């Protein structure tokens, strides 16, 4: 008796991974950092994440429907929630809800779907969203809460929700009364007023090597990042050259003029540097694909970040640095293609 079989192309083994599992693993890796964030700064961050995810999925679904793409498949790839998560992690915890709305509109609709959807975006969508809201709503985007242990006022969940819903701090409090300068802001403004960095560092918002609280969040991000490296979800080149270039250049600047430059570790453990090095600059779609290209890409992001922190108009520069390097990525990839087996150099 002849038996018939279905056929299919080689290789016949099931594939090892899916886009969904890649995205999910990145999300898992961020969770310890998110918990640390909530621990130091209160539950606002969780609300921001949920809000951003909700808007992201809404926009994603609408775009997919308009573009007649399979909803279930692409909503299930978890790329939109990851974008939302990365975006939300850059927001001050009490930012009003429309910040997430506007950010996600620019991230998902403009940066992602107008460029052709998953895999086609030139720019990192989360950073596009972030930069748009940073420029459009500077007053809200700089309203950072001090760490809970230093805060004179710790909002309850209800107060957090009402602030996010209305855009006003509860009980008639002024924004100024409840927010404080971030470590990067502090260094910036004290250098601008001619103080020494070491003096500025006496402020209570500084911890052992970075900002109080921030340094621990960064540690947890880094731990998740190492796990991603071990799982081979990200490759080592970008985190290493990005952090490496910041440390080396920061060290050079610090040694040259310790009065107006913070120590290199201060740089690494403030702002979005660690988050950027492991989770944002490593976004495969908008970054470089070749190993040598990734070395250059990471170093570029690190250098530009430092330059913006030092001379730019914003206290942190990771987002701008990533976007600038996104523009360079195709060019870098073109000139760093490895030599094909057996072909002349």
């Amino acid at each position, binding site marked *: *008796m*002849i*038996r*018939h*079989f*279905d*056929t*299919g*192309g*080689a*290789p*016949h*083994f*099931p*594939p*090892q*991974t*899916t*886009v969904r*599992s*890649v995205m999910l693993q990145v999300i898992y890796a961020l969770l310890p950092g998110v918990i640390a964030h909530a621990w130091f700064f209160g539950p606002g961050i969780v609300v921001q994440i949920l809000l951003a995810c909700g808007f992201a999925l809404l926009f994603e679904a609408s775009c997919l429907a308009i573009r007649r793409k*399979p909803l279930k*498949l*692409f909503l299930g*790839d978890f790329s939109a929630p990851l974008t939302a998560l990365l975006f939300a992690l850059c927001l001050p915890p009490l930012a009003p809800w429309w910040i997430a709305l506007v950010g996600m509109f620019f991230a998902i609709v403009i940066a992602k779907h107008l460029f052709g*959807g*998953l*895999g*086609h975006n030139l720019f990192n969508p989360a950073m596009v969203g972030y930069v748009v809201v940073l420029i459009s709503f500077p007053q809200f985007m700089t309203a950072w809460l001090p760490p809970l242990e230093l805060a004179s006022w710790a909002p309850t969940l209800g107060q957090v929700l009402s602030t996010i819903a209305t855009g006003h701090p509860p009980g008639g409090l002024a924004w100024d009364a409840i927010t404080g300068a971030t470590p990067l802001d502090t260094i910036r403004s004290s250098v601008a007023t001619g103080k020494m960095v070491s003096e500025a560092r006496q402020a209570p918002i500084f911890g052992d090597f970075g900002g109080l609280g921030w340094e621990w969040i960064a540690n947890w991000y880094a731990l998740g990042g190492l796990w991603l490296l071990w799982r*081979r979800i990200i*490759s080592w080149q970008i985190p290493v050259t990005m952090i490496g270039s910041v440390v080396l250049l920061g060290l050079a600047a610090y040694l040259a003029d310790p009065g107006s430059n913070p120590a290199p570790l201060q740089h690494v453990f403030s702002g979005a540097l660690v988050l950027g090095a492991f989770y944002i600059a490593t976004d*495969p*779609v908008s*970054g470089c*694909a*070749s*190993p040598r290209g*990734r070395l250059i890409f990471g170093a570029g992001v690190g250098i530009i970040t430092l330059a913006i922190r030092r001379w730019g108009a914003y206290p942190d520069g990771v987002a701008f640095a990533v976007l600038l390097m996104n523009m360079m990525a195709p060019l870098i990839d073109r000139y760093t*293609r*490895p*030599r*094909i*087996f*057996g*072909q*002349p150099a």
Partner: protein
Amino acid sequence: MLRDAMDQAKLAGATLHNFHGGLQLRHNKRISCELPIERAAPAERFYVPLLQQSGQEAQPIVAAGQHVLKGEAIGCVEHLGSGYLHAPTSGTVSAIGTHPISHPSGFDGRCVVIEPDGLNQWTELHPVDNWQQADPDVLRQAIRSAGIVGLGGAVFPTAHKVDEASRRGIHTLILNGAECEPYISCDEMLMREQPASIILGARILQRAVGARRTVIAIEDQMGAVHQALQHALRESAAAEIDIVKVTTIYPEGGEKQLIQVLTGLEVPSGGRPTDLGLLCQNVATATAVARAVTEGKPLVERIVTVTGSGVRRPRNLLTPIGTPISVLVEQSGGYADDAARLVLGGPMMGYALASDDNPVIKAANCILVLSSDEIRPPQPEMPCIRCGECARVCPAVLQPQQLQWTVRHGLWDETVSAGLADCIECGCCDFVCPSHIPLVEWFRHGKSELRRLEAERLAADSARQRFEAREARLDRLKQDRRRRMEEKKRALGDGQEKQKRIADAIERARSRRQENP
């Protein structure tokens, strides 16, 4: 440069090197190594496809109704030298007809159908006497007439490779026993059970091509093989043969990768191992050579691994070419309940067959039956997220994501410069792609499109050449005519000139006469 490379290649196996990328796959070979190699049960009918080697069909040289003996030539190929196809058993040719032929395309093709007479009687055999002293030409001729092809799966005619090697001169023969695809164990079992014939084949091949030494490469996970070969080597007292264990990383058994592992050198793109003074042959091919030379027996059978979780008793069977696959599966305990796919070859590079009445061919190293949870479920393809995993594992150091893009958009110039021809279709990229893009399928498609375009270009070229030749001929005719006319005119002109000169002369003479009366 090439000189240095040659010298470096002579040290093959002295130190081991790495190749780019590759995968660590589950080996799955043990399951088919538990039973010894056994003869396949006799089939009721043999279907010997005329298409066996490198894309060229053999011409049948027998007719329906004719009685043939085992080992008698039944087909002849005029391609890459000539090759033969032989009857796998004695019996009657019942037809030369269309039947499934185990071809990757899935198409049917012409087969010589043989009804066995059950005697399995050999035709008259002509072994080479005393091969140690025989002329290398005679050895190569014996390989040619035995119809031997590369048994690792590439089925390139061995005689052609051997001729090229002896013409260009090589120093080292590499016998490839690094069977890197999961599940396949026919070479491992062969090396365990018949190590002496491999050593013998190595020595004959070495003489046939004039190589000075042989390296037999095996995987480091083949425990018993090393001992068996070492033992056979001691018995044979052949000093110029080394056995080298290479690390098991798929696809280290690919010809180019194996050479890189052994020598640290890359076979030049578009080139061959002979460029480095090397010849690479599969271990099973070596035994076929030994049999052809010392016993005069042509290639009519091969060892086939029948395995996978879709068969009940995986094993290796010595199988006459033309045996229907169903016979082998039955002898291996039949299908398991969840048998879902029938593959000829390994899980990474083999191709799926639509039914088990396809016959065993010379290329059939493995019949793999995969269960439903071992195969790739039909799944939608996602867009490439440029994760670079495919490039990380590609042993040819290609950028599969870009290559795929150029093929998909038909950018053929870019496809060529991105190195499509260097893709060895190992499937590593496909295996790791999170977006489940059927990369290898695109690359195969791209290669066949390029071949088609090349054929079209050649056709267009020759049409243009014909046109240009005709134009040139007409042009020549026209010019000839014009030249003749001009010559005629000049001849005419010359005539007038002459007459004028004559007239002038007469005139001068006349006037002189008048001056001096």
